[in-house]
């Protein structure tokens, strides 16, 4: 069956901002879908509020709407574009929910839009837990015992049936939000209460626990002729009870016999048929009792998912691309397997390597929440690794984490309260923590038996024995030193030991280990991921490293390096807070630009969610951890033929920057700004000298290596001060401290994070306006691409602050000065490529806060707000083109773009939502419109902050903000808002002539403000605080706002912007426009 010709235009809904459970994998799938369907000649209309995505590049769709992904806004887009079809399966749960809403409310019918890829009933059947269970019963598949409850009373009744521990799974929420495991009745009631609130339909499933069972996933693809294939099986190394997104997983499944595997295969296909997923990819999850093999179905996702992205990267089979083509009528046998080029897509990939996926966590940023894993996903990113054995893949995955691990590093398990280490280890093994693999290794080192570890942790013995092997190999190396010959080295490298780990074990330097290894003639070979275990020749250089014994004329590598001029682009590794999709966007743009310029592009990265690791993004892809060892080996190999122009380290965030020195030391050219200039910008003393030379101002500052030094510096420059470790991203361990007591509370952590580098102590400019600037330079010429004024004042991490481009309050004189300083700085540092500067403006004076001569988080936002592809231009400049050749002009924008951050607080109950210098946001959205108010309103909507246009606002601000809050309060009052306030704020507002309803603070007795919020009497909250006491007093208030979905602002400037946005919303409804309407010509 060929593709459908009765549809001409297709609307694709993106996933919106990056949040936990919905990350770049949906940019990867959405980008594939856009490209695949556009190639087929369909008109593509795209909506996604996330500017950092590749899919929102205007060249990928015919109409690109960077607008909030809500039913109301999407309806407007439908009304305007009148698409024939809507593909809802590429944008995660967000897209599915919006599509369902549009179907339920009759919008699709009204405009004659057909759902393709999944129909309404199939989505509902898969997502509605009760219907799903009934469907499984019908086809004879067992599910865990469960009851759907809609109230606490029903929940109490259900408990008798399912028993404790019980799993609570709210209906229609993303990645288990609001769910959990209850071990006792109290917990049960607490979690069910939260789950009922979290579920948009107010229901939750309570389910029999299959804790400790083995968990498996199958990635299935089905076409309209009922051809079904399993793309990949995935086995969770962590047992049931830990969200699969938070589990270490391995592909393919390793502990099933063929008979058990086929039962699961048949069950997955039967599930798709029964649910009615007629075309596309789905993921089906199973639990298996390790003692009897009893299998139960857990759930299915009738769409592409994080697991399908992983399966695509793990096998080379592009599920999203194929699913998109199946949605328009093709069948699997009509589509090609791109990798081989000679076989069709209707087959099951088979692999001859092992893939390990490891999640990346950032619990350290949410100190109120214990680092425990459950059924609600907490990880913010992941790395994937490929090896010729499980051990090799496991150790590569650990090295890919970017947490400083070189392998199964030892961890400290402190004695328990009774001073007993053995009991402490048992307790640690029983706890589902993010580092349980390391705990297991440590337990083995301590002498625990495999069987005991398995009994306590419910890990499968196969995996624990593999770890045991590694631990004994470590012990041997510790005892006997490095291997002596080729065979010995090969054996150790085949187990996945990195040079850095061997260096640790043998007490040598990494350079010595590398030299000894090379002297023994041991270098990695590169094997291909080819979907077919080498049965057919692969024309796609999708490579991973391995160590092999000789065969034929030596060890066999399949890299087939070319004789072209090449550029290596280093990616950013796993996503984490502070380093996310923005950097992948930059890397992908570098690839695109350099490909266009005729270079062979070589990508190195280990993040399976990204567009950069799609096998057809760069000319060549090495799926490898970003360590000096791997990158140097890759470059050496590539240098065997052709010319490696150099390596681009400045696009992938902090990860590749950290490698720059090691690469430079190995004689590998680094393209763009020199590593020395990057150092200069980080080195406080050298940087101060540069600023002196350029006659630029910065806040008073000093450096400290110890707590004592920090106290002295702070006393000299005066409180408040900003403590900042050097060489960190995302403001890790950054704090504003107002007193010496506070300083003593935080300095230890700052010194620890900083390592051997000093802690920076800066004077904190209160109530200054922060400005972010992105520029591109070629060493001589400088183009200031975007000046962004932050909404939140200086002191809030720039990644967490909303900002406006162009600035909305700064006078031209200041902007000119900022531009002048930026040009000076770029020249002074000799920037070749991108540069980001953060300024603070106070009392009409401009202070330089920070310079980063590399791609910044705001690069994609600037590109989309201004229509200038600065990452691409920067890449070409780094490869030798002059800035002048791009003929960039200063242009006044006649629109405003606002960026807003999105936070994961709802997943970290117990953590305060108050913002500070340590970044906490996972993603961002852009609002674009004719004026600031409208753009800000769209940004808020995109970030799921529901701004009310009427109702009650609660205001409670610290003394310093009282004057400032009067303006926004007055504005809201003029719209008819009722103002609620406590104590001092109420008095102040009353004195300013506003009518105020006084409410009790929490400490003043009930009913208090939190009661009012919980009972729905508050629609907007302005709350600023100062000092540890006030912050902790108002904690419950911010929690109530977060849980109740009440829009809240913790800064005066945020409140001001919100008032302006409410004014815009009241003046009429929001209109939508594609990026292509803002800028002529694609960029």
């Amino acid at each position, binding site marked *: 069956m060929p593709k459908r010709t009765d549809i001409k235009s297709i609307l694709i809904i993106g996933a919106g901002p990056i949040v936990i459970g919905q990350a770049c994998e949906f940019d990867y799938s959405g980008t594939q879908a856009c490209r695949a369907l556009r190639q087929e000649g369909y008109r593509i209309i795209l909506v996604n509020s996330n500017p950092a995505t590749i899919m929102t590049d205007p060249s990928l769709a015919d109409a690109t709407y960077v607008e909030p992904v809500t039913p109301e806004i999407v309806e407007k887009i439908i009304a305007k574009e009148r698409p024939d079809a809507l593909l809802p399966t590429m944008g995660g749960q967000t897209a599915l929910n919006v599509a369902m809403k549009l179907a339920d409310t009759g919008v699709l019918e009204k405009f004659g839009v057909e759902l393709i890829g999944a129909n309404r009933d199939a989505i509902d059947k898969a997502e509605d837990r009760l219907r799903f269970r009934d469907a499984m019963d019908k086809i004879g598949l067992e599910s865990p015992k469960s009851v759907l409850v809609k109230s606490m009373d029903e929940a109490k009744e259900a408990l008798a049936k399912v028993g404790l521990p019980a799993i609570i799974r709210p209906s229609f929420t993303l990645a288990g939000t609001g769910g959990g495991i209850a071990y006792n009745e109290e917990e049960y009631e607490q979690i069910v209460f939260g789950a009922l609130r979290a579920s948009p339909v107010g229901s939750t499933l309570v389910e029999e626990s299959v804790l400790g069972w083995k968990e498996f996933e199958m990635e299935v693809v089905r076409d309209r*002729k*009922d*051809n*079904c*294939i399993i793309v990949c099986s995935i086995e969770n190394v962590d047992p049931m009870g830990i969200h699969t997104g938070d589990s270490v997983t391995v592909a*393919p499944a*390793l*502990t*099933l*016999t*063929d*008979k*058990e*595997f*086929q039962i699961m*295969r048949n069950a997955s296909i039967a599930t798709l048929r029964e649910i009615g997923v007629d075309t596309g990819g789905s993921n089906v999850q199973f639990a298996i009792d*390790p003692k*009897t*093999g*009893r*299998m139960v179905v857990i759930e299915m996702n009738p769409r592409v998912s994080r697991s399908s992205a992983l399966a695509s990267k793990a096998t080379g089979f592009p599920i999203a691309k194929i699913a998109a083509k199946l949605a328009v009528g093709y*069948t*699997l*046998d009509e589509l090609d397997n791109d990798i081989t080029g000679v*076989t*069709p897509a*209707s*087959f*099951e*990939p*088979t*692999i*001859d*390597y*092992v893939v390990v996926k490891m999640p990346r966590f950032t619990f350290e940023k949410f100190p109120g929440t214990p680092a425990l894993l459950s059924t609600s996903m907490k990880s913010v990113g992941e790395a994937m690794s490929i090896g*010729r*054995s*499980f051990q090799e893949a496991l150790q590569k995955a650990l090295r890919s984490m970017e947490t400083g691990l070189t392998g199964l590093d030892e961890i400290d398990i402190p004695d328990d309260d009774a001073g007993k280490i053995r009991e402490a280890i048992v307790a640690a093994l029983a706890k589902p923590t993010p580092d349980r693999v390391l705990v297991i290794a440590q337990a083995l080192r301590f002498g625990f038996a495999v069987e005991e570890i398995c009994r306590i942790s419910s890990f*499968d*013995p*196969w995996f624990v*024995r*593999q770890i045991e092997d590694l631990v004994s190999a470590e012990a041997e190396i510790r005892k006997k030193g490095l291997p002596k*010959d*080729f*065979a010995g080295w090969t054996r150790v490298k085949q187990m996945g030991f990195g040079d850095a780990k061997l260096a640790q074990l043998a007490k040598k330097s990494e350079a010595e280990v590398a030299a000894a290894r090379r002297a023994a003639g041991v270098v990695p070979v590169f094997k291909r991921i080819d979907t*077919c*275990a*080498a*049965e*057919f*020749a692969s024309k796609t250089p999708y490579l991973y490293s391995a160590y*092999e*014994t*000789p*065969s*034929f*004329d030596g*060890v*066999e590598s399949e890299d087939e390096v070319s004789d072209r001029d090449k550029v290596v682009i280093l990616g950013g590794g796993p996503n984490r807070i502070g380093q996310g999709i923005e950097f992948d966007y930059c890397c992908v743009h570098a690839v695109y630009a350099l490909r266009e310029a005729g270079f062979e592009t070589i990508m190195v990265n280990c993040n399976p969610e990204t567009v950069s690791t799609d096998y057809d993004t760069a000319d060549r892809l090495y799926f490898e951890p970003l360590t000096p060892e791997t990158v140097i080996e890759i470059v050496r190999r590539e240098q065997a033929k052709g010319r490696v122009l150099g390596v681009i380290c400045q696009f992938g965030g902090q990860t590749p920057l950290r490698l720059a020195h090691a690469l430079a030391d190995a004689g590998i050219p680094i393209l763009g700004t020199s590593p020395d200039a990057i150092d200069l910008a980080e080195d406080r003393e050298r940087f101060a000298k540069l600023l002196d030379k350029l006659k630029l101002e910065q806040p008073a500052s000093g450096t400290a290596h110890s707590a004592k030094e920090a106290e002295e510096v702070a006393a000299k420059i005066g409180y408040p001060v900003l403590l900042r470790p050097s060489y960190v991203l995302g403001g890790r361990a950054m704090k504003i401290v107002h007193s010496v007591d506070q300083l003593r509370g935080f300095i230890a952590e700052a010194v620890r994070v900083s390592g051997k580098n000093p802690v920076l102590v800066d004077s904190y400019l209160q109530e200054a306006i922060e400005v972010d600037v992105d520029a591109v330079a070629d060493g001589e010429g400088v183009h200031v691409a975007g000046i962004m004024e932050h909404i939140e004042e200086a002191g809030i991490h720039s990644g967490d602050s909303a900002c406006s481009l162009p600035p909305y309050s700064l006078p031209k004189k200041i902007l000119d000065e900022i531009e002048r300083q930026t040009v000076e700085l770029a020249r002074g540092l000799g920037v070749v490529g991108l540069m980001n500067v953060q300024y603070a403006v106070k009392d009409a004076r401009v202070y330089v806060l920070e310079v980063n001569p590399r791609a910044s988080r705001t690069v994609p936002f600037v590109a989309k707000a201004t229509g200038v592809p600065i990452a691409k231009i920067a890449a070409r400049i780094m490869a030798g083109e002059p800035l002048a050749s791009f003929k960039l002009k200063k242009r006044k924008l006649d629109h405003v773009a606002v960026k807003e951050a999105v936070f994961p607080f709802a997943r970290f109950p117990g953590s305060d939502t108050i913002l500070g210098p340590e970044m906490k946001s996972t993603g961002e959205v852009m609002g674009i419109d004719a004026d600031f108010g409208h753009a800000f309103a769209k940004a808020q909507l995109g970030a799921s902050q529901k701004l009310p246009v009427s109702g009650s606002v609660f205001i409670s601000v610290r003394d310093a903000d009282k004057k400032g809050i009067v303006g926004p309060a007055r504005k809201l009052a003029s719209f008819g808002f009722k103002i609620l306030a406590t104590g001092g704020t109420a008095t102040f507002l009353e004195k300013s002539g506003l009518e105020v309803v006084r409410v009790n603070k929490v400490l003043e007795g009930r009913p208090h403000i939190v009661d009012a919020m919980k009972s729905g009497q508050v629609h907007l909250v302005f709350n600023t605080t100062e000092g540890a006491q006030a912050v902790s007093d108002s904690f419950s208030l911010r929690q109530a706002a977060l849980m109740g979905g009440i829009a809240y602002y913790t800064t005066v400037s945020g409140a001001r912007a919100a008032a302006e946005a409410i004014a815009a919303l009241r003046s009429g409804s929001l209109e939508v426009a594609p990026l292509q309407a803002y800028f002529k010509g694609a960029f």
Partner: protein
Amino acid sequence: MTARKRSATATPPAGTTAALALSDGAIFWGRGIGAAAKKTGEVCFNTSITGYQEILTDPSYAGQIITFTFPHVGNVGTNEEDIETVTPAARGLVLRADITEPSNFRATRHLDAWLKANGLPGICGVDTRALTRHIRDTGAPSGTIVHAPDGKLDAEALVAEAKAWPGLEGMDLAKDVTTRQSYSWDETAWQLGRGYGKLAKPRFNVVAVDYGAKRNILRCLAQAGCKVTVVPASASAEDILRHKPDGVFLSNGPGDPAATGIYAVPVIRALLEKRVPIFGICLGHQLLALALGAQTKKLHLGHRGANHPVQDLETGKVEITSQNHGFAVIPETLPKTAVVTHISLFDKTNEGLRCTDRPAFSVQYHPEASPGPQDAHYLFERFTALMANPKAA
């Protein structure tokens, strides 16, 4: 095609206890597993990730040394159920990784112990991907595999031995693996928690000619309601017809169909004459084709794996199949009274045929799976339907 030369190291590195020598002079050193023995055969590869025990006991692997492309083999150990014959027919196995301790609730024995007990030698630590690419590019070579715990290995002698092996072409191996005596079969399909079942009410009487039959074929027949009488490959048409069968099944098996055909074809022709319903799988398919006057050829490297797409030309549907064959029917040589029903979507070679004037059909692939996908189980029902109504064909 990459030109590959023989390995540079003619002397084994320290610790070597096993070798695989190819007839083209290449030699692989590694660690020995299984029985301390030496065997020579055709070196092939199988790309299936699961089901190594079924593969090792599949009689069609007679005369072959199997390279497993998936690196970890042995994870789930071995058990008494997952076997296709009692004695493995394969001559050896080549692995990338060492065999691990088993981890599966059904495991009763470590794979290494099982190999020893079954006299199978193996080698691990080999770059199986390089070997697979070599086989892919040059065709399946002859090879000698040896597991020598004392480490005494003579590269030259091993290569010479591999070279001296005549190869599978022209070799009738069915006679080595077929049953010596007739027996009846009533074991049905496997179920989790219950194991294999027993046929309660037979509806059809089927004679299965054993050229090296996999037990799961017999189980599938029994599951479909057939009481099966298994007869040796050398059984005459009279021997077969004496059982008054509703249908005759031609089994899979090893070796060159042309060689086995010398005695099998006349029998099959006689059965076709009598219009007995016939169903053939793999070698049985090739023999049926030969009986119809068609020819077979040796494939460059054969099909061995559990992911092979086969299209049913009559419905257009694609099924994912388990395959294990080194020879194929040349479709152009089929008579007008036979139609091609299935083709491989990997290389378009013939995967099935049906007679238009007689109740007979056959497939090249393995609908009984074991190991592999069970998409094609329906063919057993098709056979019983044919027996129920032979005139409909």
